[in-house]
């Protein structure tokens, strides 16, 4: 069997974390290639359903990245994210899936290095957890 290559989805808000990801690119910061970014305007627009859908269909890990608290382009959008994603983690856990497969973090437009760190750590963590048990399961 080939070495486990996790599939990871990341939601990045347009103003901070997507810009941070861009900065990581401009700075040529190298990181694992497992993470696929979906750009959203605000981390608060990430529906719990997206995370649940991804996890229940076999995606190995989901990242939700937003602006630091206080820096949200939409004033208090990320306050919602900060409340919502821990609940999603709980739901995942209730499903019997390790809640560590979902991670919320804050990456500013200036934090290319933090983006690299979050991606690298998360990929490592998911590699440690192994494939999502729901991979290939049809409902």
């Amino acid at each position: 069997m080939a070495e486990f290559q996790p599939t990871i989805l990341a939601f990045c808000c347009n103003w901070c974390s997507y810009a941070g990801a861009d900065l990581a690119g401009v700075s040529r910061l190298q990181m694992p290639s497992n993470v696929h970014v979906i750009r959203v305007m605000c981390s608060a627009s990430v529906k719990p359903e997206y995370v649940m859908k991804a996890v229940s269909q076999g995606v190995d890990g989901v990242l939700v990245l937003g602006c630091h608290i206080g820096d949200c382009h939409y004033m208090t959008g990320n306050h919602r994210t900060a409340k919502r994603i821990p609940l999603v983690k709980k739901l995942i856990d209730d499903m019997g899936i390790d809640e560590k497969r979902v991670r919320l973090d804050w990456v500013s437009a200036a934090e290319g290095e933090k983006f690299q760190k979050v991606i690298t750590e998360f990929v490592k963590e998911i590699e440690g957890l192994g494939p999502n048990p729901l991979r290939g399961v049809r409902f």
Partner: protein
Amino acid sequence: MPRVGVFICHCGHNIASVVDVEKVAAYAKTLPDVVVAEHNLYSCSEEGLGSIKKSIEENKLDRVVVAACTPRTHEPLFRKICEQAGVNKYLFEFVNIREHVSWIHAKEPASATEKAKSLVAMGVAKAALLEPQQETESSVIPRAVVIGGGLAGLAAASSLVAQDIETELIERQSELGGILRNVAIIGPEFEDSKKLLDSYTKRLTTSPKAHIHLDSRVTAVKGFVGSFEVTVSEKGVAKKIPAGAIIVATGARELVPMEYGFGNLPGVITQLELEKMLAKGQIPKRAVFIQCVGSRQPGREYCSRICCNVSLKNAMRILSADPTASVSILHRDIMSYGTASERLYRQASEKGVKFMRYGLESPAKVSKKDDHLMVDVYDETLDESIGLETDLVVLATPMTSQEDATEVGKLLKVPLDKNGFFLEAHVKLRPVEFATDGVFVCGSARWPSSAREVICQGLAAAAKAAIPIRRGKVVIEAITASSDPERCAACGNCVAACPYEAIEITTIDGKRVAKVNETQCKGCGTCVASCPNDAMQQRGFTTNQLSAMIDALIKSTVEGT
């Protein structure tokens, strides 16, 4: 059926040296709804754009996907070409395979190519579900606010006023001029700073369009491009100023050093203190400048750019006033960029300024000896230790960000870089602009800059701020939310979630539903995630579109393995 065209960019070697662009294009052709998939050397070049346009027309495309760099810089360009080819610009989808792929997976071409394929599949899946959108316009308050009355703010405000734009200049001190008030002569051409500041100040004080607020601070900022509301506390009294654009010109400050006995040894001073001495005609007989004090070292890695030129200027001022004076400059690298400064460096050598290079690991030692100071330094070029007797030790410390830069950044929702300076949208493609529309930056708030650079940036920021104001209107991106009355149960979750109070529960055709006020909606999508019934949708980020992206990712990775 949608007709999707996919255009993969080589970006010269930037993408193509890592990602197998042809393979990605061939893969894209196999995706549902894709009619054509091409690759271009530089999609953003005239030739690249021309070929995209031609392909849209020839293949009757109604959806366009470009896989290239980042939408944050290039989306407007590709949207424009779609429009020119008769495709609504909201039927365009951007896939980032440079910043998010080739540049960060430079040593893994195979997996980078696989990732690029997945991202293209996700982009195509979303594109197929995109819908044409109509943009709305909103009017612009014909007034600009300039925060900071130093040289940058003065240059910006003067330019705005000259363009007949009402300008409010907010200065926290009781006088205009900023840090330059402590600098009498500006290098490298030895200009009189007072003359410069006076001419700007006069232009503003005599203009009916300029409104100067001294002893004032910005305490709150609301709104968006075209209609900001800036709350200013002027001498303790709060005032609300409506404005169409805002320029940040808050400057920087001199780092107060901790090294070389500063504060304990008399005669050890900073560059600004020397400026004050020289302005009073106090010329030292012997002076030693130490460069890079507190910069280009762990903890503060950056080069403050202007300190070498300032030391060269002041060394020359000392020698011009007293040709018998002895001046040494201890440096780690002399950074006299620009022709005039390079000339100054040469002149300083010719006039007898002694340049000695020291290393980060072996900083000079400053001590008191009798009635003078002693500087011991290891000169790397001569490979020997040298003792210099001197009357004055001038520490060239870097410019650092303002104490309240973080606070100002939070008020305006604009980012700072890791050194605390304001981070513009893109150094080359969008200088002096923030990613946030209608907010601009200039001067040393952005990065330590010389007086000339500061003026250039001030003028540039004013020119950019004038664009929406002169046009009188701004286009609102069509990414606002709307509620489907069929699905809406009027639960009010969205009303509570909206940070802009843009949603209300109202009655339409006898049914209670949520309704979004489009001019108030800023397109964050917070309401979408709070809707339990999928009634609330954000244009360009609908639940169908994002779910399709997730499906495409799963199909191309999880199910593909």
